[in-house]
């Protein structure tokens, strides 16, 4: 199925999404990758607030290339999500609604997705020039010293993603292997 959603995602949006659905997101998403996640993790340990309102937020695992003059952002494709697996379950328990990345997630992340009725989306890895066209504005809101790894607030229009893990825990990567594998793994 194909859906167009305006953020934030509502319960009823999440309820219809199944692994393999193509979704176009419009609204506000936040970027954070390795270094920003570590800082958020340390902030929570120290009892400090997070630099963004995590409730119902969408985090895009992405560190852009620099923007040329007159453009909101440079190349902007997803990074490998598994490096954020250590941090994701806690953020999901705090209200994070969806993550956009690429690649497999741990069982702990999948369980946290089911527990909180969230979604793990993939964007197409290595399509950073194409994906940048769906980003209309970008503003660094925290950890500016981290450069490309700073937390950015992005305004996106019809940003194309695919549901990899849905709120029931179905995983598209596993389903795809079952469907398309032509011989047993040696």
């Amino acid at each position, binding site marked *: 199925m194909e859906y167009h959603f305006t953020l934030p995602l509502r319960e009823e949006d999440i309820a219809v999404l199944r692994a*393999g659905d*193509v979704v176009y997101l419009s609204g506000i998403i936040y970027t954070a990758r390795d*270094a920003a996640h570590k800082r958020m993790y340390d902030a929570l340990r120290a009892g400090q607030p997070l630099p963004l309102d995590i409730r119902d937020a969408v985090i895009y695992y*992405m*560190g*852009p*290339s*620099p*923007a*040329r003059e007159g453009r909101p952002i*440079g*190349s*902007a*494709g997803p*990074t*490998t999500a*598994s490096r954020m697996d250590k941090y994701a379950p806690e953020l999901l328990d705090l209200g994070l609604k969806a993550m956009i990345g*690429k*690649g*497999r997630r741990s069982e702990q992340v999948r369980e946290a997705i089911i527990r909180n009725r969230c979604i793990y989306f*993939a964007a*197409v*890895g*290595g*399509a*950073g*020039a*194409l994906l*940048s*066209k769906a980003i209309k504005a970008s503003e660094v809101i925290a950890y500016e010293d*981290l*450069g*490309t*790894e700073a937390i950015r607030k992005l305004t996106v229009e019809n940003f*194309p993603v*695919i549901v990899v893990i849905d709120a029931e825990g179905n995983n*598209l*990567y596993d*389903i*795809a*292997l*079952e*469907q*398309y*594998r*032509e*011989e047993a*793994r*040696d």
Partner: protein
Amino acid sequence: MREIDVKKVTETVAEMCIEANHFLTPDMKEALNRAADREKAPLGKKVLEQLQDNLKIAGEDMIPICQDTGMAVLFVEVGQEVHFVGGDLEEALQEGVRRGYTDGFLRKSVVRDPLDRVNTGDNTPAVIHYSIVSGDKVKITFAPKGFGSENMSRIFMLKPADGIEGVKKAILTAVHDAGPNACPPMVIGVGIGGTFEKCAILSKKALTRPLDHPSEIPYVRELEQEMLEKINRSGIGPGGLGGSTTALAVNIETYPTHIAGLPVAVNICCHVNRHAVREL
């Protein structure tokens, strides 16, 4: 002796950084186009079409193909008749990377220390592999490497008794483990033989060989073909979303090795297998 001013080296490397991050070589584009025509899985085909659009946008609007513009890797073959003037060769190469990544709006992805992790701010230092060859030319190959796929690369120190079956198993294990993480369709660089570090460098070098130039060694060429077919029956598919396009090519390089060993390195690259080659 032929004199080469290192300023020329810097300018050339800076240009190559920008070129390689915005334009794939014709063999890579050709392989992607062929795959998009052939792929039957609906989502897989959609991914390949997005990658074709992405390449077009990257070249037309000068937006890097991928935001991970990589750690810069340089293979520098220096003819022994060459005399560099005007400064230090190593510094000239690093300056080329510094300038290319700064002037070209490329991402700075290098940290000064693997554990304190402070970004150097200019994507240096590059990893440089030098070799001295005959003649009076300098050949520079620039191959930036993104880490989504680099992280999925492996080295296997096999036993001679493991033989070719062991090599096949090693390659397939690395590819299956990489799966969707390495941004398939992948290009697989394999080094067999040498020592621990030699096979790793061979596997990296293998990624810079044009995809339409199979190995000249008959058994290696057969192995490349067999591995490509097997990998494309794995089901992983474009983006890991399922299909028959998991790899675009398997390039294998070999080197003599020790009586006691059979090292195999598998350097996995994503579909953005970038490189530029220039001769001075």
